């Protein structure tokens, strides 16, 4: 499966889990939104060790590329054969380890980031205590003395698991909206 042209290699961006809806305003929905907001705050303030403690040992963290298509296959534009991120928990730890080295120049001086999380939809999973969570993400990123912020928008399809230490992220697929990214690198997490 290496063809770029083959539509079968791509899938729809739209997302609707089969499990029962956990409504906005319910206690579980509220706690999951708390977890997403806490996560955004930890990443914006570069508290990576605390963020990593929110990641499950069996984490999968990916960001497939988008392509522009027309015609019958126009909505099959998420290419999972190629990604911007293709991570597990150890590789996230490796990335954070690099950022801690005092010579990871892409983030030294660090970006000033602001993550806006919205449109949170929660669904029950077959496994009790696990939830499918969709959210929209807007990241504004200010670099150095450049007054123009870089930005990226994405839909995120997560699975969160309730544990003794709170909600942990088990699965995240980041569906970015750009086929050609305007952000000069992903030295930040989404």
């Amino acid at each position, binding site marked *: 499966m*290496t*063809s*770029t*042209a*083959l*539509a079968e*290699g791509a899938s729809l961006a739209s997302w609707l889990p089969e499990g029962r809806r956990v409504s906005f305003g319910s206690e579980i929905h509220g706690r999951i939104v708390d977890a997403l907001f806490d996560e955004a705050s930890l990443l914006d303030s570069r508290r990576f060790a605390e963020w990593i403690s929110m990641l499950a040992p069996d984490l999968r963290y990916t*960001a497939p*590329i988008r*392509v*522009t*298509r*027309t*015609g019958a*296959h*126009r909505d099959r534009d998420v*290419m999972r*054969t*190629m*990604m*911007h*991120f*293709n*991570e*597990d928990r*150890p*590789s996230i*730890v*490796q*990335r954070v*380890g*690099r950022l801690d*080295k005092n*010579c*990871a*120049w*892409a*983030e030294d001086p660090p970006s000033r980031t602001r993550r806006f999380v919205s449109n949170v939809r929660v669904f029950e999973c077959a496994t009790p205590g696990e939830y499918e969570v969709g959210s929209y993400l807007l990241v504004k990123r200010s*670099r*150095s003395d450049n007054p123009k912020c870089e930005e990226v928008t994405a839909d995120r399809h997560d699975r969160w698991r309730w544990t003794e230490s709170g909600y942990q992220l088990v699965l995240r697929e980041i569906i970015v909206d750009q*086929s*050609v*990214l*305007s*952000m*000069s*690198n*992903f*030295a930040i997490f989404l």
Partner: protein
Amino acid sequence: MQDPVGSDNFVLSDGCTLDDLIDLEMNEVSLRVMSDPELHRIEMERVFAKTWLLLGHDSEIPEAGDYVVRSMGEDPVIVARGKNGEVHVSLNVCPHRGMRICTAETGNAMVHRCIYHGWAFRPDGSFIGAPIEKEQMHGSKRSKDELGLPKARVHLYHGLIFATWNVDGPSFEEFLGTQKFYLDMLFKRTDAGQELLGPPQRFIIAANWKTACEQSASDGFHTLTLHRSLMVGDGPMGSTPETIYDQAPGMYGVDISSTEGHSLRCMPMDKQFTSFAGMDFSQDDDALLQALPPPGLTPELALQAKHHLSPEQLHLLATNPPQVGGMFPNVLIIYIYVARPDGTMSPALALHTYQPRGPGKFEFFNFILAEKDAPEELKRDMLENAIRQTGTSGMIEQDDADTWPQIMRSSYGPKARKSTLKYQAIAGHEIPDGWPGPGLIYEGFTKDDTQWNWWLNYHRLMSTPA
């Protein structure tokens, strides 16, 4: 006013000439080249419309009618497979009213119909006709033959798709020159050849294309400082902040280049990565290729290399494999071992092209490859490795993406634009004892020679009228 593109020695509107920009005696290049809009227009004509350019890979468009849309500098093109399996590259601009013909990035079509007025073209670029044939809406002043899309000359190099607008210019073999001997070691070493693992990552860097491209010409020295995170701490190349400049990991090897501006860094892996330091490098070539195959090959696949390469090429592949380098004008080659999170070393193969988007931006294409016959598990590893180390989120290349825009911004001021990029650490071409290959060879500590050769070829093309 004289057209700067058409004359031998162009003169910019303030009187500046190529000799003012590139000082051949001093090995210096004016920083002004990193943002000048007038110069950019000349570069598009004299460099990007004249030389061979990498557009993609054969494996992306396996079936008749398959196509991808790419660009040759600022010119958008359709790269399509015709009905007999041949690959065509045609300008993606409708000859009728200038609309983009393919509005998708990829797909399959035996007819490309412009959505504006419906003019239609075959995958080979030839004009089929305009709607309402009896009304002859393409007129009578030009024949249908004349109304086909401008076609580039195409060459497939072991699956890599190259094209040039200079249809009567140098052949692809002439373009590679002596570098072919070394590039074959990377691209022509297994029976089935290589494939892309998916479409390219694409992103925009707010910098002039040359900031990335002069570095691609085997700037080994920057690794020691810009990519220090590979070395300090648990980095795969060893060293500490105190010893890094004494030990200089990855700096010693043999740099290769050619008068065409291509280059590669050939490095013995024991001098590069701490985890290979204990290996016996006195073994014969066959044993070495089995014990430590070059990045991307398994021991089984390394056996296949014997059918495709000469004993001289195999000897270099075993002892001094080419690992990073570039092809003039805008290709980076990165065929390396990288550290997995568990500390083991595993391969990553990637090619980048840097396509100009005006003088102040370029688009970064990251193509990730593997040998077609590599085991699926290895391909999965290589995809992970390449994504984690190169391109959009790559831990190595994040730092480059942040450097290039700052070089360009440095070039705006009236004082700074007159300062120069210096390529004066010159080793000089000398063939090491027993070296089995052709080309311009620089042994020892990596210096500025290969990058200066890139600028010499840039100078040569920029001195040749379009």
